[in-house]
């Protein structure tokens, strides 16, 4: 029977050579595309491959990276969150407002993150208990959180120049040559990528998103899973908001307008399915990197503003098309 593998030999997958396994990975297509862009850019601009440019480019996507982690996990579980931009802004605003009211900045940040967690739980409640769709619940929260930002600031950005240096250090400091922001980013990415691939807890997220009913029939508390992924996504928004606050030394009520689409796009480019059940942190991060790389490159090449959007959109479309065909050929 040459069309079936003898089950006795079935677990030989781990012996396949590394290169072959790499080739089979969902993310390889994206890596290839990003490397190609890198190569092109290195030739196109002498400033591209400088440490300072790399550093600036990574700073530009590092914090969004946290948001995309939360979004990817939520997408895998079958949900979606349109409120990421405004909840991130709310975290900045609340922490900043508390700080200006005299609260210790660390305590203020913890409270803001807790509030975001609460918002996520609130959304989770509406989705799992009331039975509404993630889309509409998070859209309502997006509007409400933005409103709360306005309310707490009167629409005016809060100047947090007086934040203590050790606090600003999270956003502006470096360890050796590496900015703390990038370190935080890497820690989160590696931790969540590992957990998502390996832990039983996160495996249940995949089961739930793949077939919620089958998951329930396998004894998984699917509502709890969805509740938790919804909450986690908002918590990560909270953390991202605090880092942004430390980095810019201000809290902007209008921060992150339209950010939700970028974040969702990054996750989808990275292989997350809008129908749930699949996705990976690595892929999603590559998605963020791709989007950010394109923007940075266009700026570096000083492409006319009036052409940038057209080029950006076209590269996005081309990239996902190429990625699609690369995956198809391997599949």
């Amino acid at each position: 029977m040459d069309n079936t593998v003898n089950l006795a030999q079935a677990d030989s997958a781990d012996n396949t050579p590394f290169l072959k396994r790499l080739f089979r990975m969902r993310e390889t297509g994206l890596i290839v595309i990003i490397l190609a862009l890198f190569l092109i850019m290195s030739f196109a601009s002498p400033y591209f491959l400088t440490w300072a440019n790399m550093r600036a480019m990574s700073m530009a996507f590092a914090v969004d990276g946290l948001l995309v982690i939360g979004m990817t996990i939520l997408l895998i579980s079958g949900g979606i969150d349109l409120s990421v931009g405004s909840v991130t802004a709310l975290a900045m605003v609340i922490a900043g407002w508390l700080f200006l009211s005299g609260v210790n900045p660390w305590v203020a940040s913890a409270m803001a993150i807790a509030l975001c967690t609460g918002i996520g739980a609130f959304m989770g409640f509406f989705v799992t208990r009331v039975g509404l769709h993630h889309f509409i619940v998070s859209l309502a929260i997006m509007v409400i959180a933005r409103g709360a930002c306005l309310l707490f600031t009167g629409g005016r950005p809060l100047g947090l120049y007086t934040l203590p240096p050790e606090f600003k250090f999270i956003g502006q400091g470096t360890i050796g040559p590496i900015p703390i922001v990038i370190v935080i980013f890497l820690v989160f990415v590696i931790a969540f990528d590992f957990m998502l691939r390996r832990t039983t807890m996160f495996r249940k997220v995949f089961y739930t998103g793949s077939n919620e009913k089958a998951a329930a029939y396998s004894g998984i508390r699917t509502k709890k899973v969805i509740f938790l992924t919804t909450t986690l996504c908002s918590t990560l928004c909270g953390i991202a908001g605090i880092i942004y606050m430390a980095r810019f030394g201000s809290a902007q009520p209008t921060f992150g307008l339209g950010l939700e689409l970028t974040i969702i796009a990054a996750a989808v480019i990275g292989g997350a399915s809008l129908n749930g059940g699949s996705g990976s942190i690595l892929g999603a991060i590559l998605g963020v990197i791709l989007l950010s790389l394109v923007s940075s490159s266009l700026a570096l090449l000083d492409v006319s503003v009036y052409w940038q959007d057209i080029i950006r959109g076209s590269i996005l479309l081309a990239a996902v098309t190429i990625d699609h065909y690369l995956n198809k050929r391997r599949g």
Partner: protein
Amino acid sequence: MNIVMQDVILKIENLSKSFGPVKALRGVNFELKKGEIHAIAGENGAGKSTLMNVIDGILQPDSGDIVLDGKAVKISSPTMAQQLGIGFVHQEIALCPDVSVAENIFMATTNVSRSWLMDYKKLEREAVDVFRQLSDIDPSVLVKNLSISNQQLVEIAKALTLDCRILILDEPTAALTETEAQTLFGIMRNLADQGISIIYISHRMVEIFDNCDRVSVFRDGQHIVTNDVADIQPSDVVNAMVGRVIDNLYPEKAAEGAISEETVLKVKGLSEVTRFHDVSFELKKGEILGIAGLIGAGRSEIVKGICQLEGDVTGDVWLNGEKLALRNYQDSIAKGMVYLSEDRKGDGVFLDMSIASNVSALKVEQVAGPLGLIQTGAEEAQAEALGRKLNLKCGSLSDPVSSLSGGNQQKVAIAKMLSVNPRLIFLDEPTRGVDVGAKSEIHKILRDLANDGVGIVVISSELPELIGVCDRVLVVREGRISGQVTGEEMTEENIMHLASVTDAQASVA
């Protein structure tokens, strides 16, 4: 069956089809004659459905020809197949859940209809006509509100409305009870008499030998043999399929005295608001208990109720003498009581996930090491062990379940149940779509488990299976237990009698 065989209407010549490394069909030759009912038998994964999908234009062959009425044709889509007069009842139910039964049935007709406007009244009237022969389903109901068996009936009704010359039925009776199956055979015979050719795929030998004219056997993607059923015996078919003789289809029943006085499960006064009422029964250690009933009698509902999967249930349940206070299905699993669903596509398997992670889904913790880290090795080993036990045929354990044949998907679902070493399993149509060989393996496993003291409750629409496997059969009628049969009383007649509505015949609505 003294049908005069007429000309060959469909001929498959040297047809091959691969999915990546998997060769599903290898140089298949096959002939279908006008007006015959042609059975196809073969193990799970033998390539039966793949061949049918090729004939219906859903899949394109890698090589080989389809010859229709003596002309080689390339069937590029189901649309084209339909134009050529080919109708197909799929093994996996494919209906539009958000649409009414009537619209589902006449979807193909609507599609080619010349009229601009929908005439819902006409559709429903005609749907009622179609169902008059089959079963009484309200055509205005949305399909998503139907039970899986009723969906199967809709799927059949859908094919019957087509104006076709060749009708393919891929395991249509897998979820049907005897009554509906018999109705279907009547209809099939009728169509064949009108000159329509029928390809009938089934794992049930009785059906093949009672209703078909010829039978073709497939194995490993190859056509093995075609015979008139009059010329051969069921054992010959099984032999050709499996490549060995299965002498004893069903395992030995529990020996005298093997059933102890100990009860594994005791259910008392179990009721659910609308679905079932006052259900009480016991399951002894070492015993296999069957549950029979007509479509929609409430069998699935009762066992789901017992393990708190669905419904608002009142009543008492004891497991191994311990009174259970389950709040949800997780509690039930924790107590070792699990349920194998009848709807494997809907809630049995994760189609887009790997075989290994499907098998481990019921308790992933089992294949995890410290810190809750999943050990891929352990996970694959578990799947491999159970897969081998159930004769699972697959490419690699990391392939998605969607790449498996229907019967092999069912085996994955069963493996998932067995993975947790349960103390009591409810199996709802456990061998749905499973081939004879694997079926008898599964039956043997069930008997072994019962002998080890695991409680086994089997719901099946296939009466011979219940009679062959179970030591006792409960019969459910309209949400109540209408009786039980054991030993010599276990006959199809007795069960059917208890299952059908005898008194108050008219009160259907």
